[in-house]
């Protein structure tokens, strides 16, 4: 087997930047409505005790930046349009950082979500945080643009704790890695 694990460290940004399949992007854009309230996988709802998942007594977390609006402890937050797992914001990390004690996966799946404040479509990298067991807080599952496992980086069912020292999954971040070329209207 070729040694992919080292190579994959360069994937997240590298591959994403190097490609430009606009047709897919346009399709993604057409289906995103960042301001709506999204349903989540029933297990997420049940586990969170909230009709939309992610609730469970968590006080809202705001970025403080009007250009990045919404509650980062809620599944409905705009960056979470294709997230699947526990929100790191509720686990000791933040929307873009892993909790202490974990390691951030260098490779992951990618979503394209529209920011309702500036109406731009951002490419969001859902890097998993690894090496600590399931956080157990703020379970969310949203699947806008999610495709079956034949398209790995568009699929959130994989355990993306790959290329990390441990593949144990703790939580998921939603990191801005760029603005999509063809921003949806």
């Amino acid at each position, binding site marked *: *087997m*070729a040694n*992919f*694990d080292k190579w*994959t460290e360069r*994937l997240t940004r590298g591959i994403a930047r190097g490609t430009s399949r606009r*047709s*897919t992007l346009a*399709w993604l854009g057409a*289906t995103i409505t960042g301001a709506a309230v*999204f*349903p*989540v*996988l*029933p*297990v997420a*709802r*049940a*586990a969170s005790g909230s009709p939309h998942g992610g609730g469970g007594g968590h006080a809202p977390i705001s970025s403080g930046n009007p250009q990045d609006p919404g509650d980062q402890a809620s599944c409905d937050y705009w960056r979470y*349009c*294709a997230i*699947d797992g526990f929100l790191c914001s509720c686990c000791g990390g933040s929307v873009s950082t892993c909790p202490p004690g974990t390691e951030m996966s260098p*490779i992951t799946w990618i979503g394209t979500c529209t920011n309702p404040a500036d109406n731009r479509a951002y490419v969001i990298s859902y890097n998993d945080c690894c*090496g*600590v*067991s*399931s956080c*157990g807080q703020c*379970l969310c*599952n*949203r*699947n*806008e*643009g*999610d*495709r*079956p*496992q*034949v*398209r*790995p980086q568009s699929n959130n*069912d*994989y*355990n993306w*704790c*790959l290329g990390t*020292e*441990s*593949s*144990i*999954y703790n939580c998921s971040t939603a990191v801005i890695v760029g603005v999509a070329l063809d921003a949806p209207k």
Partner: protein
Amino acid sequence: MRLFALVMALSMAGTALSSAAAAAPGKPAFPKALPEEPIPAVAALPAQWPASWVLIHDFHFNAILDGRVYVVDTAATDRPIKGIVRAAQFANMLVSPRRGEVLTSETFYSRLTRGERTDAVTIWDMATLQPKGEIVLPGGKRQQSVTYPQLFQFTNAEKWALVANFTPAQSVSVLDLDSRKVISEIDLPGCAQIYPTGARGFTSLCADGSLFSVKLGPDGQAISSKTIEKVQDIDNQPLFSTPAWVGTTAWFVSFRGQIQAIDFSGDVARPLPGSFNVGTADGAAPEWRPGGWQVIATDGADKLYVLMSPNGREGSHKDGGTEVWVIDTKTKARVARIPLRSVATAISLTKEAAPRLIVARGDGEVDVHDAATGAFVRSLGNAGGANPILITAP
């Protein structure tokens, strides 16, 4: 000295016994005390499980490393759970009544969450649920996903098992279950999921919408392969990866309700003509679409059962469903709609003479319906654990 001290400690707690036959001031109605019961005592299962039994995979989100498979008697009015099989860390499970074995494909760390990684397939006896042996999978590459059945499959008349790998390089390991060895590994760039194909081989779904069929030789190496182009449109009409099997024919449904059968009986997969849609109905916003994790099931004959969400739209494919639609594959018509008691994630049918529709709900409860009438029969409580996401009828 140590021994003495412990005996002393125990005796100080003062528990005293008489013979169970000794006279006691009980009610006259029960002249004799209840008998002593043997220790140790461990229950066993029948070597051949009844057709009402299923395996329900609990993904266990709050402790993914401690997933389980519950052995469940769907006909039980009490005690639906018959036993629990370990299914650690994004495990996959296979069951073979012919072999009398349940197999789990799992990952372990020497310090639970850290340390040395070991991937292994464990072989469990169906009658005792005790491990009979294991096959260690080298290289730390076993694919970890929310559980799909098609990541761990038999071929070669259940003498071999196929394990999906993902690092994210994709490959399939071939395991000889009798010699308990990994005998080969087939590279599978750009393809995923494993559908047993022909006497000895498999097919996978590929990123461009094609199928890729591999025929294996007696040593487990690929002896031929073939690409079948344009089987699915992954952008607009992707197939759920988990089909319903009628013999060697797999019935797939797409995110938008298109039914496609694929024949895996030969060395090369063969999509069958006559694809059709499950149809539409009122009462949806914006429309009915399949939704859940395991969304299609069969009675083994002409009927398909599809779990449907009334909130169908892009991204709704894992939201779960509130109805099961029954489709006749001969007439390509919907013949019934079964309303569920709650939003469900997974459905399957038992292989009983009069099959039951087993429904794993999002809140963790498992319901049993009559597959012919749709009528609710009973709830099995949380017999599938915290997050039941996959139901297997052996």
